[in-house]
């Protein structure tokens, strides 16, 4: 378990999410891939926090080591907000088009 291993795993998950976002037709699958990309970023933040230089107990060491974990908390909060908003957008698109496929003709204004 080294930093390079963790970063490579995080990059692999990020690329899988990127592929899903770019290639899938269904909106739900695109949102799932977005969640994967969020979590890959959070994993690399936590990995950097685990392998940060330690030092003694104290405020300075805490703000150096634990900043990565705080960023992971913010990423999780933003990811949850994004999921709620995107899924309500899915329902709105479904009401308008009776289908949730991403096509060229989706106009957000109509929704």
């Amino acid at each position: 378990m080294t930093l390079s291993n963790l970063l490579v795993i995080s990059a692999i998950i990020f690329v899988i999410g990127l592929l899903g976002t770019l290639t899938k037709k269904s909106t739900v699958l695109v949102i799932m891939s977005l969640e994967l990309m969020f979590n890959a970023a959070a994993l690399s933040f936590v990995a950097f926090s685990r392998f940060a230089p330690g030092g003694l107990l104290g405020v300075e060491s805490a703000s150096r080591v634990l900043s990565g974990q705080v960023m992971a908390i913010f990423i999780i909060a933003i990811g949850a907000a994004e999921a709620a908003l995107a899924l309500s957008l899915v329902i709105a698109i479904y009401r308008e088009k009776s289908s949730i496929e991403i096509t060229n003709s989706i106009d957000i204004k109509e929704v």
Partner: protein
Amino acid sequence: MFIDAIFYLVSILLISNSLLILFSKNVYRSAVFLAFSMLCFAAMYFMLSAEFIGVIQILVYVGAVSVLIALSVMLVKDIEKSTDNNRLLYYSSAIGLIFLVSISFFILNFEWNEFSRNILDGSNCLLSNCGSEPAILIESTNWLGKLITTDFMIAFQLSGLILLASLIGALALLRIRMNDDSK
């Protein structure tokens, strides 16, 4: 070592579950695989001594977001065609592969120890070959609370504001259409 074996097992499970999200034939199974891969992320966080983040991950993603996604899967009409790819499959695979190869090349060849020594001189534990974890991680939840309420106070408040705004936006999106339907 035992922890290394568990780490490699969890990372193989994580990558295979994430691939199965894309390659399964049924979108509902993709949602279940997403929940499994979020559990694997939580296991990663536990192994990285970030217990609080792991618990939050299970609560938010496995508990809440998976349920939201499973609910929206019910809107899918044609379950057979729901996992189709669009015509950009080969281009985006090539772009993703190039991105992955280049960033992995950078990660594996970067001198993390030199980097750590240059910006943080004289620390007792260098970035990539830390034998033992930083001592602060033993009581990390305590210090996380202190850090969030002091250094990251504005960001914390703003993330709460973003959550509120997204919930209001979600309600407004659905509410407007309801009024139109009733006309």
